[in-house]
């Protein structure tokens, strides 16, 4: 291999919100050219280093020297000093609060916003090769638990770690295990809820596809702790790849004696089976999930009794979701205090989010609890697409609410999100920009709820339908101010009276948009306008006479003959004929047609 060439990496790229880096790259190239180095030293645009508050950053290899907060003007000095002379540009190195200089990337990585606990092995190991998993600590915690610990000791560690269920509700996991442990029975079950149904969320799937053994091991640890010998994974049938990898993982674990009878020669038996969901969001609710596993309609039942008392087949059952289980082994290996060192007072550890929507870096991220929304969206997420303005972030999917500008600096944890009228949910985080109509967004989520309501209780079955109808009414410009009060009352009652978590949270998108964007609702019902220009019925196409050259292209393309005008004279759209298809606007080359 050739001797290592010097290279300059600059963070950012097309998706970065910080446009400085582009000019910096250009300057660096110019400087290299000026010194005839352009063929020897390469300038490479890289993705985000996760050090956005220090950005733009420049990394020089070999040596992994990191320069922070580099401006385009610094290009000359970097080239002349570092590249040509091999001297570090001290003033561009990071200095920590104590004034100590840190130059290597490794030293700086503590400032990275993301921390991978759950996703520790995703993308690192071959999920279909158990040995690679073992090489990355898989089953080590299980071995420790089985040989060195009593069930209650395991439960105590989990309790002390402060781990809370990542499925949405945030119930303390250790406590849940303890209840299941205390309910004595000849048979108990450990269930992994992998029925990720949130539209726009794919955290669990990524873990199952990337690191299935983490889940199997954690389930076995849970089984040992609550004295269960049977585990069931309830997974969406729409996740064929995850299913295939899980199956492979289970059979390999059995082969290696890490599942099945007499695990690792300790006498402990634990085996895992897969049950499939079949497309019902409500099955994320644990009682519904259990009914579904029993071959029935996934209708929830009233709690209590909780599954920990009477769950699968009427036996004590502990249900945790994928992300929760994925935290277990590191906690066992590194201890409760290691885990609880990360996060906020009442929300420990990390949370995986699926960033989606109008954000540049769509994808999965894992951040410590307490990270702010601003850090997530503008640093990790790279900001809003096309440089548009941030409007809201929806967390918790159809059960959640939206966070707005005023929440940007709120540390994200269970309690803060709830206080802000949203919820952690499973971790979908959808970003919306100025073009999104919040009434329509609420309507979209309600449409989802209406479709996914199981139909068992009347407030959810009928009430959500009525909410959706009223939102539709409003987006059509037929609503009144009084309707907004009705929306609110219906929402409160549905939340207050519904049987399960689905109905108890389904009006959240309505309430939170109503709370945060009331002016937008009011615009829909009073002046009958959609400020975001999304609601078709409230749009009006209009020709700006000054821009119109009278080319007649719009009149010719209009399917309903709504546009009239003489050649070379400004044209006119008759709003009572216009069907708002938008064809004219697409056709117009002079930007003369606008939506009002």
């Amino acid at each position, binding site marked *: 291999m050739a001797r290592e060439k010097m290279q300059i990496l600059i963070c950012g790229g097309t998706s970065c919100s910080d446009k400085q880096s582009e000019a910096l790259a250009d300057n660096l190239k110019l400087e290299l050219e000026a010194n005839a180095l352009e063929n020897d030293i390469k300038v490479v645009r890289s993705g985000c280093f996760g050090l956005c508050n220090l950005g733009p950053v420049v990394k020089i290899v070999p040596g992994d020297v990191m320069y922070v907060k580099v401006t385009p003007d610094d290009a000359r000095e970097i080239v002349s000093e570092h590249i040509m002379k091999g001297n570090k540009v001290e003033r561009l190195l990071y200095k920590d609060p104590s004034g100590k200089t840190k130059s290597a990337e490794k030293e700086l990585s503590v400032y990275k916003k993301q921390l991978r606990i759950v996703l520790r092995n995703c993308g690192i190991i071959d999920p279909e090769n158990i040995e690679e998993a073992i090489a990355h600590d898989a089953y080590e915690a299980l071995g420790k638990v089985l040989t060195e610990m009593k069930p209650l000791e395991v439960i105590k560690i989990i309790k002390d770690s402060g781990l809370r269920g990542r499925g949405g509700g945030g119930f303390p996991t250790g406590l849940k295990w303890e209840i299941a442990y205390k309910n004595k029975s000849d048979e108990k079950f450990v269930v992994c809820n992998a029925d990720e*149904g*949130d*539209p*726009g*969320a*794919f955290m669990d*799937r*990524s873990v199952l596809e990337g690191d299935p053994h983490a889940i199997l091991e954690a389930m076995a640890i849970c089984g040992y702790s609550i004295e269960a010998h049977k585990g069931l994974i309830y997974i969406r*049938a*729409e*996740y064929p790849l995850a299913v295939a990898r899980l199956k492979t993982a289970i059979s390999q674990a059995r082969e290696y004696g890490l599942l099945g009878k007499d695990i690792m020669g300790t006498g402990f038996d634990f085996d895992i089976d897969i*049950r*499939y*969901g*079949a*497309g*019902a*969001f409500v099955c994320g609710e644990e009682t519904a999930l259990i009914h*579904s*596993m*029993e*071959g*029935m*309609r*996934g*209708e929830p039942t009233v709690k209590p009794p909780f599954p920990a008392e009477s769950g699968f*087949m009427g036996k004590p059952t502990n249900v945790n979701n994928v992300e929760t289980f994925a935290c277990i082994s590191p906690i066992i290996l590194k201890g409760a205090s290691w885990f609880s060192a990360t996060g906020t007072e009442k929300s420990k550890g990390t949370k995986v989010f*699926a960033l*989606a*929507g*109008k954000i540049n870096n*769509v*994808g999965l991220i894992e951040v410590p609890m307490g990270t702010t929304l601003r850090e997530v969206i503008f640093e990790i997420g790279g900001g809003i697409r096309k440089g548009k303005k941030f409007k809201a972030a*929806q967390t918790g*999917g159809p059960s959640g609410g939206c966070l707005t500008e005023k929440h940007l600096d709120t540390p994200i944890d269970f309690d803060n999100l709830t206080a802000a009228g949203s919820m952690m949910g499973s971790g*979908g985080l*959808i970003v*919306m920009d100025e073009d*999104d109509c919040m009434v329509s*967004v609420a309507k*979209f*989520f309600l449409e*989802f709820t209406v*479709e996914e309501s*199981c139909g068992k209780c009347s407030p959810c079955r009928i009430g959500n339908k009525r909410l959706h109808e009223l939102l539709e009414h409003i987006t059509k410009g037929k609503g009144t101010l009084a309707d907004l009060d009705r929306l609110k009352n219906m929402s409160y009652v549905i939340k207050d009276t519904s049987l399960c978590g689905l109905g108890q949270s389904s009006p959240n998108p309505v309430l939170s948009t109503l709370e945060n964007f009331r002016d937008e609702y009011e615009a829909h019902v009073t002046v009958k306008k959609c400020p975001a220009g999304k609601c078709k019925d409230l749009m009006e196409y209009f020709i700006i006479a000054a821009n119109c050259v009278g080319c007649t292209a719009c009149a010719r393309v209009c399917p309903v003959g709504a546009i009239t005008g003489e050649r070379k004279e400004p044209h006119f759209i008759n709003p009572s004929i216009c069907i708002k298809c938008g064809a004219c606007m697409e056709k117009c080359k002079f930007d003369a047609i606008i939506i009002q």
Partner: protein
Amino acid sequence: MSSIKIELRQEDVNKIKEICASFNNDPQELINVLHKCQEHFGYLPAEIQEVVSQELVIPVAKIYGVITFYSFFTMTPKGKHPISICMGTACYVRGAEKVLDEFKKELGLQVGQTTKDGKFSLSSLRCVGACGLAPVVMVGDKTYGRVAPDDVRNILKEYE
């Protein structure tokens, strides 16, 4: 009183029985059995439900109740090229609805329907997990990313 005759080919009856038997005819495995049957037959017509009912000893009304509860199960055959439009939130905010409308218009179908010639069927689904490619359309196993309404006609052309 029941008087319907269930007509199926012997091999189909045998297949269903085989599937049920592979789950020990355990009523709790109903959903797994239905998955397998749908995998094999493509859909779950009344006849199949009747046989499963007899094998697992579950009233057929209950089976129908289960099938109509879960959106994954269907009683109508899918088209040769099933088209699914992801309506997950990520796709929605990036314009999936317009894409769906375009498919509806082009094919003259509503969601859940199949064209008369059995070629295309249209469905919407929730998040295929390719949110980076939103809006996403799947035709059979093939995924199309960043689909705009204008692309719809071209996508359909590929299957003509």
